[in-house]
């Protein structure tokens, strides 16, 4: 299975969703979503609360099983239950809205946990990489702090560092600025813009239209469990074709 995981067509996009369908009981959240993320590109998902953005990201990270459709990572369908889900998740990075830092571990240990347990790095090696990553996100002086001693912006940067230190092939960001005070949003967004410039492949759910404009190669508007409109930020945000998209954007601009 491991051999199969790393194979796949070199021409296939890094991530391709085809007809992804997911319901919770009677409630249909994803009603057949098609989506592609090319390597070194950034796709931004926008849409109202409950439009399925988070479920889509969780499905890609295999935190939710889908009812139908396929999720191809480099051409391999990772939604198949015979695929080793732990191995897939080890290749992806996920950042949550509420940070989800481990409260009982120091920031440094939050970063080295997967390095040591999953990627089998030695303690010294893992800590060196973690300290370097913390310096990169501007938290070099917080290595020995506990998560509850950080501000929201610091905590979210630490959470992003925790995902990045494992060198993910694809970074999934779920509303990473929604829990932050407005003056703290900037520090997190600047970090993401920097990542984008370095070529990190990202799939982002956000309510920050300014961020979508700055970094997205592709903006997808989710509505009623499907991708209603997709295109460049200019197309979707400046010149939306669908009435529902126009309505959604108009409400944001008030």
């Amino acid at each position, binding site marked *: 299975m491991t051999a199969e995981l790393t194979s796949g067509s070199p021409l296939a*996009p890094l991530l*391709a969703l*085809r*007809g992804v*369908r997911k319901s919770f009981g009677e409630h249909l959240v994803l*009603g*057949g*979503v*098609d*989506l*592609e993320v*090319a390597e070194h*590109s950034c*796709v931004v998902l926008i849409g109202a609360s409950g439009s399925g953005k988070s479920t889509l990201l969780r499905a890609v990270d*295999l*935190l*939710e*099983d889908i*009812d*139908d*459709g*396929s999720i191809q990572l480099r051409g391999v*369908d990772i*939604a*198949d*239950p*015979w695929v080793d*889900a732990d191995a897939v998740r080890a290749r992806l990075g996920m950042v949550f809205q509420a940070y989800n830092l481990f409260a009982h571990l120091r920031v440094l240990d939050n970063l080295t946990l997967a390095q040591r347990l999953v990627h089998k790095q030695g303690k010294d090696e893992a800590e060196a990489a973690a300290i370097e990553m913390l310096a990169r996100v501007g938290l070099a002086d917080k290595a020995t702090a506990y998560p509850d001693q950080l501000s929201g912006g610091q905590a979210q940067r630490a959470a992003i560092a925790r995902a990045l230190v494992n060198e993910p092939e694809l970074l999934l960001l779920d509303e990473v600025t929604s829990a932050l005070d407005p003056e703290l949003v900037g520090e997190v967004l600047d970090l993401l813009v920097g990542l984008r410039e370095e070529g990190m492949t990202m799939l982002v759910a956000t309510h920050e239209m300014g961020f979508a404009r700055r970094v997205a*190669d*592709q903006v*997808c508007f989710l509505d*009623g469990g*499907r*991708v*209603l*409109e*997709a*295109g460049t930020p200019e197309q979707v945000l400046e010149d939306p074709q*669908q009435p529902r998209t126009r309505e959604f954007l108009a409400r944001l601009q008030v």
Partner: protein
Amino acid sequence: MVAEPNAVPDQRPWQPSEKALARTVYRARRRRRSFLVALASTVVVAGLAWWVLVSSPGWERTREAFFDPARFVEMLPALAGGLWLNLRVWVIAGLVSLVLGLLLAIARTTTAPALFPLRAAVVVFVDVFRGVPVLLVLLLVGFGLPALRLSWLPVQAAFLGTLALVLTYSAYLAEIFRAGIEAVHPAQVAAARALGLTRAQTTRRIVVPQAVRNVVPALLNIVVALQKDSGLISILGAVDAIRVAQISVTGDYNFTPYVAAGFLFLVVSIPLTRAVDAYNARRGWRGTRGVGGAIR
């Protein structure tokens, strides 16, 4: 770069694709395999345990003394009569302990200066009855209180035994309630006080309801434990299931009645435990399995 946006919704009712069906078949096969593995491992472990038992040198004599089928059946009616006393003691001691435990916990959270003696008394009470073995509390209450010759105090063993269990168990339960009260988020209190509720109103209407909800699984565990500890009142001479068994054993030194009494306690406590588990699971109190679904 992106597939054509699927702007026109597919109105046909959903039929699982062949891919989805294949996944379902695969998952069913995995479940069947898990079941067979569980079955095989159970058979092996149970078989080993049985073999260790029957191959022990004293097994023949032990079987005669502890597992005499005729004695077992013969004793059941008398033991069931004794168990009826255990069940009554359990229900009464359980209810009284729950109420008393909650009152003790609330008393401990009061802040009025005039109530300091109350708070101090609660701390001493809980420390003493949580720290002393149940057996000792039973002996002291069972033999100490009648020695006072208080005319209004009932001296039946069942009453004194119940009283001793209440003292010990209300101390346990008070600590659980207190943990629940302390786990209520301060923001809840702030919101209630912001609405103008007094401290006492906040405790009664906001803190206690949430505290109780937090600790229901722990409370039910203690109440189930009380069911079996109700058998301890036999040491005071109350004729419960254990005492009935003891009297019979003293006659002929066949220990089967003890095994039969244990069997009867299990008949009550196992369904009770399962009911508690089921209740907790339905309320989503079993962690991620209960609420979010398991992550594969």
